[in-house]
C-alpha cells in the first residue's frame, strides 16, 4: 500500500515543469547551462523517470529518503528533527479534544433533545465550521495581542537558556494557543459523534432492558450507553488522524512552530521534490501507525472483534 503512495506521489511530482535545479539557480541569480547540467548529474535528475523511481524505492527500503536540495541535508534528518514538535502538537490536541469531546458528548447524549443537548450541539456545529487557521488567528489576537497572556509564536523562547522543567513549562506556554485552536475544532467533531452514538444507543434493546431492571440513570448512561457509543469515536480517531496532520500544517504556519507542516511549506517554496516526497511518505507511515494503534485499542475495548478474529 505504501508502495502505491510512493509511486503516485512520484508520478505527481514528476509532472512538474521545472525542477529543483531551476529553482536553485533562480535563487542564486542564474547560472549557465553547464552548471545546471553538472548539478542535475549530481542529484541524478538526468536519468529516466523509471530509473529514478527504482533507485528511490530501493533506497527507501533502507530508510534512505534521499537528499534535500533546498536544505542540502538528508531528508530523513530534517524530518526527524521537525517531527517531535508536530507529534507534541498533534498528540496533546488529540488527547484534549478526545477527552473533552467525549465527556461533553456524554453530557449532551445523556438526555437527547434536552436544553443542554441543544446548546452543546449548536455550539459544536459552529465550532466545527470554523477554519482552524482563522480560529488560531482570533485566539492569538485575543490572548497574545490584546491580553498579552501568552506568546504569539514559536515553540520556545529563543536563547533563553532554560533547562529542564523551566524549559518544559516554556514550551507548554507556547503550545497553549496552537493546541487550543486544533483541539477546539476536533473536540466539536468528537462531541457530535459521541452524542449521536449515544442517541442511537438509547433505542437499543439492552438499554431498554437495563432501564426496565430499574438501574439508576447515571449507571445506565455511563456503563451501557456511553460505553457503546465510544466505539465509533475510536474509529473516528483513526480516520481523522490524516486530516489532523494536514490541519497542523496551517496551524504551524500561523504560530511559527518549526514542525513537520512548516517543513512541507518550505519544501513547496523551495520546489524541493525529494523533501516533499519524503514528507508525504512519512505522513502516510504515521497515519498507518495511528490506525494500527486504533485497531489494537478497538480490540481491547470491544471483545467481539478479537474473538471473531481468533475464531476465523
Amino acid at each position: 500500500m505504501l508502495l502505491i503512495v510512493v509511486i503516485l506521489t512520484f508520478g505527481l511530482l514528476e509532472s512538474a515543469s521545472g525542477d529543483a535545479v531551476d529553482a536553485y539557480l533562480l535563487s542564486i541569480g542564474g547560472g549557465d547551462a553547464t552548471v545546471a547540467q553538472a548539478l542535475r548529474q549530481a542529484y541524478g535528475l538526468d536519468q529516466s523517470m523509471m530509473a529514478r523511481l527504482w533507485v528511490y524505492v530501493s533506497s527507501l527500503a533502507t530508510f534512505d529518503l534521499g537528499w534535500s536540495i533546498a536544505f542540502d541535508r538528508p531528508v530523513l534528518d530534517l524530518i526527524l528533527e521537525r517531527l517531535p514538535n508536530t507529534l507534541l502538537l498533534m498528540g496533546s490536541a488529540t488527547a484534549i479534544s478526545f477527552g473533552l469531546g467525549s465527556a461533553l458528548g456524554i453530557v449532551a447524549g445523556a438526555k437527547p433533545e434536552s436544553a443542554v443537548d441543544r446548546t452543546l450541539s449548536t455550539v459544536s456545529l459552529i465550532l466545527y465550521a470554523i477554519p482552524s487557521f482563522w480560529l488560531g488567528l482570533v485566539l492569538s489576537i485575543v490572548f497574545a495581542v490584546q491580553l498579552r497572556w501568552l506568546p504569539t509564536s514559536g515553540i520556545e523562547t529563543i536563547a533563553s537558556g532554560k533547562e529542564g522543567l523551566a524549559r518544559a513549562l516554556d514550551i507548554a506556554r507556547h503550545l497553549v494557543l496552537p493546541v487550543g485552536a486544533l483541539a477546539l475544532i476536533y473536540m466539536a467533531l468528537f462531541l457530535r459523534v459521541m452524542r449521536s452514538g449515544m442517541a442511537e444507543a438509547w433505542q437499543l434493546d439492552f438499554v431498554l432492558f437495563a432501564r426496565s431492571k430499574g438501574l439508576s440513570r447515571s449507571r445506565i448512561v455511563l456503563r451501557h450507553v456511553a460505553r457503546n457509543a465510544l466505539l465509533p469515536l475510536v474509529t473516528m480517531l483513526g480516520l481523522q488522524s490524516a486530516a489532523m496532520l494536514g490541519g497542523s500544517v496551517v496551524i504551524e504556519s500561523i504560530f511559527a512552530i518549526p514542525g513537520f507542516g512548516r517543513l512541507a511549506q518550505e519544501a513547496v517554496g523551495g520546489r524541493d521534490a525529494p523533501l516533499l516526497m519524503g514528507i508525504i511518505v512519512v505522513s502516510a507511515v504515521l497515519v498507518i501507525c495511528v490506525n494500527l494503534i486504533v485497531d489494537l485499542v478497538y480490540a481491547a475495548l470491544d471483545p467481539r472483534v478479537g474473538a471473531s478474529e481468533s475464531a476465523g
Partner: protein
Amino acid sequence: MRLVRNLIGTPEGAIGLGILVLLALVALFAPVLSPGDPLRIAARPLLAPFTDPSFPLGTDRLGRDVLAGIIHGTRTSLAVGIAAALAAIAIGLCVGLTAGFAGGLVDEALMRVVDAFQIVPSFLLALAFVSVIGASVPVVVIAIALGAWADPARLTRAQVLSIRERDYVASARVIGTHPVEIALREILPNALPPVLALSAIIVAAAILTEAALSFLGLGDPNVVTWGSMIAEGRNVLRSSPSLSIFPGIALVVTVVAVYLFSEGLTKTIGRGRRIA
C-alpha cells in the same frame, strides 16, 4: 419538490437552505452589488470599518474595499467548493461502481488505490499538487477533489455490494440486460441517496480546504478569496484585526449553512425512508 418542502419543514434545513440561497444570490449578483474589480485600489489604505458609509467594512493595507472582496470572495468559495465536491463525487461514484460491480481483481486493485489516497493527508496532497502544477482555479479544484474522492468511492462500493445481490438486479440479469445498463439503471439510482447525503459534508470540507490553501498563498493570485483576504489582513493583525475577522466570519457562516443544510437533508431522507 416534495423533498424541498420536507427540507424546509426541518428547522436546520430551512435555516441552512435560506442562508445558502442568500449566498448564492450574492455570488451570482456580485458584479451588480459591487461593480468593478474588487482588487482595485478604491480608497485610502487601512480605513477603519463602520466609519465611511461608502466603505462599510473599511479598506485593507492597499486601500482595497473589504466589503467588495467579501462579496466577490463568495463567488470563488462557493464555485470552488461545489465544483470540487462534484468532481470528487463523480470520481468516487465511477470508481465505487466499477469496483463493486466488477469485483475480483479490479475491485482489489481499485480499493488499494482508495486506501493509498486515504492514508495520505489530503491537505498535504493538495498542497503538493498545487505547488507542482501552479496555482489557478481549475488546479485548486482538482487538487481538492483528489483528496476527497476516496470516501464517496468507498461508500458507493459498499452500497453497490449490498444492492447487487437483490432480486430485481438478479431478474434484470436473467432477462439478459447488458451489465453496463444494469449498473447504470438499476444499481446507481439506488446507491445514490447516502452518497448525496455525504456530498454536503464534502462541499463544506472543500470550502475550508480552498480557504486554507489560499491562506497559505497557494490560491489563484488573480481572484479574491476569503482565505487570501485573511492572509493579507494577518500582516497588520496587531493594528487592524478586523481585516482578518470579517472574511473569517463569512467563511464560518457559509460552512455552518452547509452543515445545517446537510443535517436537514439527512433528517428528510431518513424520514422519507421511514414512511416508505
